[in-house]
């Protein structure tokens, strides 16, 4: 019988923890220097070259009030490469969990979390984690999903 559930990774930036669907994750790399783009908006401050192509760096801290934005030249200890629609994104992170699985009945519309890139949240043990939604990110950035 097929196991029911959603495979996830927890991606952390400072005090923010976000669940990311494992099937979107292409790689979890170590700290990587990124290339700052002149005049770039804060949410997409630069790019990294990954697998022979330039990938936009997304600063999750920019979407959550109270967190320190990624500083120029700052490389967080992990770089999570995520598929997002037809694009690929790089999420600098302070920590990344192992893959874990949650039953689908633990996924609910977002009520508790105020993370704007999540349309749903995971109720897991004694925690509530926002579930990162790439389409919401693209919408926030003004890019069609």
């Amino acid at each position, binding site marked *: 019988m097929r196991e029911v559930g959603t495979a996830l990774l927890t991606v952390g930036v400072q005090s923010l923890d976000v669940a990311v669907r494992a099937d979107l994750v292409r790689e979890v790399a170590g700290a990587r220097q990124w*290339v700052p783009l*002149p005049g*770039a908006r804060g949410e*997409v401050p630069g790019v990294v070259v990954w697998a022979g*192509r330039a990938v936009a760096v997304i600063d999750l801290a920019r979407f959550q009030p109270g967190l320190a934005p990624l500083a120029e*030249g700052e490389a967080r200890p992990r770089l999570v490469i995520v598929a997002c629609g037809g694009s690929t994104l790089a999420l600098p992170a302070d920590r990344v969990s192992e893959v874990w699985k949650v039953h689908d009945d633990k996924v609910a519309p977002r009520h508790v979390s105020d993370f704007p890139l999540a349309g749903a949240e995971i109720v897991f043990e004694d925690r509530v984690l926002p579930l990162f939604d790439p389409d919401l990110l693209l919408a926030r950035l003004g890019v069609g999903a």
Partner: protein
Amino acid sequence: MGLAATFLVLRADRVDLGLPAAQVARVVDRADWTAAEPADVEQLLGVFRMGSRAPAAPCARVLILKTPGGEAAVGTARALLVREILVNQLCELPPLVSPGGAPRVLARVAQPEGAPPLLEIDPAALCALAATETPEGDGS
């Protein structure tokens, strides 16, 4: 070794800004330039917003760029370096970094091991942007 492209490079704090050398017609000392004050490359690109350098350093040299319509001038206060990059290291920038259909002045990026990354400037797009800006100090 593969095919290499040659760039005239302005070195900023964390990145080189490269103009394809084949599209730079000539470089003129600012003291020898008698036409209108050229727009500063870095101001056009918004490098100052990166906190890279205090603004308003006067241009020291003028770059005459070949454009589809002829030639256009831009200025820089920085020293110019010549740098070669393997063509297979140059990657197109993703659309996500150009919000709302903003002009793509930066075309490609290279991030070679052990060397500063390079952002390739599209000279035609840079000149088009310069034409829409009023250069600081241009009293003409």
